[in-house]
């Protein structure tokens, strides 16, 4: 495990309701700009990975589908699934392929076309990402419900309020309004969140990320390849930590934190030699599938002490100009959450932020040249924390 791994190309589809494209066309929308920015052609790719959870969309053999559509056959491929962290799981496989020396140029694609099924069907399916028998079959837990139980526990333990959670939605919509790829490009206020109907108490409609169609793509290269090609615009994967949680929430000790995310973060920090994340990172993308989990992520990532995450959002410390900008692309909340694409979309954002290519009004100050992404599958069932840098380790 010695090769340094760089991201040399990125592509991102428009996120939202994409009735205008089928699955393959949606994939190509992210793949084409990735090939172009990396200055490579499909024939140059040695191996490719697709992160997608599927089920709600028609095409299940997505690697084969894109092998055909994008001329990647007969190269090796793999489809990976880790619920809402499928994209980061795909990056994991691609990263390992390059790092181990088995491939020098790897394409990683994340895609989800969730709106090929009606909303009730998606609600039914996504509620099944925990323990099917003990949580879904008998108690009808939904995806918002799993995280709502964390929101409730957090409110009681630390005195946070529903208005505090709403502040996360307000921030992420503020930045979503500045991201042309976002599903919701509209600012909202706390009142909008508070007046929206309950989905799973204490979460209301505006506390929840939407059901989204979208794709994102990155191209990974070995240091050797970067040198050969003379790549100038690139970022490096400095480290990645991975954690897993129990299927049943009832097998866990605490509902104000995700143990798998803390575990993944500490691994990633150790390898990247980061001691004080807030001081050493220029910004982060965290998994705000709902509002409360963004606050919990601040704490799991040690941006603040346990119980102080709510102060960070109250004091607007996670806006650009604050202690650490978080989700300045709109996050899952406003940018949208096509679950297999989300982890890869976060990598695209790391690339844009570090290379100062973010759109007007949402470019963070880049000083240390390090950006973190935190992508969670299920409710801490899977957790990936990845640190990207302008300079290699």
């Amino acid at each position, binding site marked *: 495990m010695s090769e340094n791994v760089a991201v040399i190309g990125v592509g991102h589809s428009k996120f939202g*309701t994409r*009735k*205008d494209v089928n699955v393959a066309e949606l994939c190509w929308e992210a793949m084409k700009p990735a090939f172009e920015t990396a200055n490579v052609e499909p024939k140059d790719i040695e191996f490719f990975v697709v992160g997608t959870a599927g089920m709600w969309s*028609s095409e299940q053999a997505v690697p084969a589908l894109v092998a055909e559509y994008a001329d990647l056959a007969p190269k090796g491929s793999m489809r990976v699934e880790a619920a809402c962290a499928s994209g980061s799981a795909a990056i994991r496989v691609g990263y390992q392929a390059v790092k181990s020396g088995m491939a020098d140029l790897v394409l990683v694609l994340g895609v989800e076309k969730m709106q090929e099924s009606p909303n*009730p*069907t998606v*609600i*039914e399916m996504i*509620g099944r990402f925990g*323990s*099917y*028998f*003990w*949580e*879904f*079959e*008998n*108690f*009808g*837990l*939904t995806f*918002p*419900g799993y995280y*709502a*139980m*964390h*929101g*409730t*526990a957090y409110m*009681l333990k630390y005195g946070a309020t529903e208005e505090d959670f709403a502040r996360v939605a307000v921030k992420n919509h503020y930045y979503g309004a500045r991201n042309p790829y976002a599903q919701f490009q509209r600012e909202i206020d706390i009142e909008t969140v508070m007046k929206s*109907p*309950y*989905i*799973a*108490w*204490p*979460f209301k409609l505006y506390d929840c990320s939407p059901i989204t169609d979208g794709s994102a793509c990155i191209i990974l290269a070995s240091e050797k390849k970067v040198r050969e090609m003379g790549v100038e615009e690139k970022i490096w994967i400095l480290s990645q930590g991975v954690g897993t949680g129990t299927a*049943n*929430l*009832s*097998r*866990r000790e605490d*509902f104000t934190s995700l143990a798998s995310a803390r575990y993944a973060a500490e691994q990633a920090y150790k390898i990247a030699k980061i001691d004080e994340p807030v001081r050493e990172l220029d910004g982060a993308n965290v998994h705000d599938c709902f509002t409360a989990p963004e606050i919990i992520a601040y704490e799991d990532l040690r941006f603040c002490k346990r119980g102080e995450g709510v102060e960070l959002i109250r004091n607007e410390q996670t806006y650009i100009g604050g202690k650490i900008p978080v989700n300045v692309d709109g996050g899952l909340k406003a940018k949208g959450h096509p679950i297999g694409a989300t982890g890869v979309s976060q990598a695209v954002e790391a690339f844009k932020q570090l290379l100062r290519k973010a759109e007007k009004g949402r470019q963070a100050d880049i000083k240390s040249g390090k950006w973190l992404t935190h992508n969670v599958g299920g409710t801490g069932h899977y957790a990936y924390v990845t640190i990207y840098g302008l300079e290699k380790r």
Partner: protein
Amino acid sequence: MEKEAIDKTGFPIVPDEKSGALQWMDLRELRIKYVISVEGIKKFFEGLKEGKLLATKCKCGRIFFPPQKDCPSCMKSEMEWVELKKEGTLETLTVIFVRPPSFSMHDPYTVAIARLDDGVRILSWLKGDPRAVKPGQRVRVEVSRRKEGHLMFELVPI
């Protein structure tokens, strides 16, 4: 909708309501219903019928709830079934307003997690008005009959 479209255009193709983009309306409907083995934990259901909440306990002392057949601590599978204390303390809850279609026959329901007095946690529905309780509330486990006709455990505030 598909039939109408076929009659009109010759294909199951209809324009999307909002964008007008043409959509092929799938003719192949899939219904999924799983068959799940409970052979390894059948005693749990026998216990529930008698109003008992059973967990598995390994010889090494480790208790499992939900019950599991095998112990990864000592690699043994000789489990004893033990009755759990049916009282505990509520740790968290949510009220599911937007329900999955397969739960549409139920009114919004409260899902809660409690820590039972013997240390294990349990997730289930909580009976009664969720506004009248908060974490810390003492609760009891009761066995009741669901609308579908089968027995299941639930939490009831004391």
